[in-house]
């Protein structure tokens, strides 16, 4: 144990302690600050979208067009009664005709109030997500002409925006990850160059390329973890601030973006993931570069 620790210290001393180390840590702090923000955006959006989906899954609208006003009312009552008996249905409500007329007035004028006008019947049904098929079947038994819609349609632009935001966030994380691997590659090349004499001597003493790669890997992993931890903490503080402000908006869509503990854990794992990524990029760069020598 003691022996190992002493050896690790010597391994790092082999490369000296340069300024480059701080530059790398600084870059990694920025990279992880941005990544954690993008990651939090993605996770929050996913949470929000999940909330909407769960809500919408059970929201159905049954629509019936019937020219004859009295037949329409009879059918409507029968539909409400039949739908209320379907297992899993928690709420059935016919949309208020006056409300509908008010909605239509801009297009139809006062003619919309004419009771003879074939106004459609709209019935809102709240059911458990699995019950949609039974609701549709029950509606058609009473009124074969009835149409059953998931009422997701009116929310779909919001839902679509959230989906886009989610993929933008994922893309951002991937782009920053690629940039991080690129930085690691450049730093590894610069390291091979700066420490060429040391590495030559190590090779002459029988070091393998893997041993040399490990020296640079360890240094880059350390810088990435150090800088990355700082960047991550700063970003998480900002995310936490946003979370409290989102909760205060009272909006269902925005409030739904609250991160769960598992999300916070994922964000905390990002610097570790990036350190691994930088390590692998370094290793591949070193092995590839050295492999072309004598």
């Amino acid at each position: 144990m003691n022996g190992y620790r002493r050896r690790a210290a010597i391994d790092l001393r082999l490369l000296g302690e340069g300024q480059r180390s701080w530059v790398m840590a600084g870059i990694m702090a920025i990279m992880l600050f941005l990544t954690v923000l993008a990651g939090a955006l993605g996770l929050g959006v996913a949470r929000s979208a999940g909330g909407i989906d769960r809500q919408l899954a059970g929201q159905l609208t049954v629509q019936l067009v019937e020219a004859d006003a009295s037949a329409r009312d009879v059918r409507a009552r029968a539909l409400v009664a039949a739908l209320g008996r379907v297992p899993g249905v928690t709420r059935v409500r016919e949309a208020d005709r006056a409300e509908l007329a008010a909605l239509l007035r801009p297009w139809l004028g006062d003619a919309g109030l004419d009771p003879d006008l074939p106004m459609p019947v709209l019935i809102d049904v709240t059911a458990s997500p699995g019950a949609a098929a039974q609701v549709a079947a029950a509606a058609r038994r009473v009124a074969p002409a009835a149409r059953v819609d998931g009422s997701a349609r009116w929310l779909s632009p919001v839902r679509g925006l959230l989906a886009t935001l989610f993929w933008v966030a994922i893309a951002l994380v991937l782009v920053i990850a690629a940039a991080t691997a690129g930085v690691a590659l450049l730093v590894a090349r610069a390291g091979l160059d700066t420490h060429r004499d040391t590495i030559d001597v190590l090779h002459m003493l029988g070091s393998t390329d893997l041993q040399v790669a490990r020296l640079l890997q360890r240094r880059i992993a350390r810088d990435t973890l150090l800088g990355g931890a700082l960047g991550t903490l700063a970003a998480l503080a900002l995310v936490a601030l946003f979370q409290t402000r989102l909760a205060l908006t009272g909006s269902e869509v925005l409030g739904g973006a609250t991160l769960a503990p598992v999300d916070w854990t994922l964000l905390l794992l990002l610097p570790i993931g990036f350190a691994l990524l930088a390590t692998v990029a370094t290793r591949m760069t070193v092995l590839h570069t050295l492999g072309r020598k004598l």
Partner: protein
Amino acid sequence: MGNIVHFENVGLRYGTGPETLSDVSFTLTAGGFYFLTGASGAGKTSLLKLLYLAQRPTRGAVRLFGEDAGSLPRARLPGFRRRIGVVFQDFRLLPQLSAYDNVALPLRVAGVRESEIEAPVLEMLAWVGLSARVTAKPPTLSGGEQQRIAIARAVIARPEILVADEPTGNVDPDMADRLLHLFEALNRLGTTIVVATHDMHLIGRIPRAQLMRVEKGRLVDPSGLLRHPPGAA
């Protein structure tokens, strides 16, 4: 004893320049003691570089430990290099490490446990008279002190071949004798020794040693005093 090194019609060219070494053929026997002499620029260091696998021959064959060194895949070089100790003409100590860590480096590279490193390193530093400078970094040491650290580093891992390029160039005659004594002791333990030197006094100290002389990139027979090429077939 078997042949440990065999050169056959070896040529070496740096880049597109003229041949630095031409038609070099010789055989070294395991356990032998060899001196390599020649004027400055004749090609001694170049020949040794082929021997310790810092260069590959541009033509001819270099056989080491019974294998063709010219075609060794890169992955096998470390294993071969660990069997060869080298005192570089320019020492090539790592300035950022202490004398102790410089000498310990070959053992650490070979994966020796830390608990088994301290005693031999301190013993070796004592042997070359540097017990008082264990923690000193090479830039703070004199040329002769650096050379002794380079020698300690070359022999610490008990190599099968010790290659020393002008190992006594910077030390006084007493220390030179002492270092030669160290080489002799290692030689008696079975290590094959190859020393490049201008120092005729040094060469005279080991009568049983064989002598190789390089002139303008070719091995020549030095007139009668010692044999050349040693053991040539």
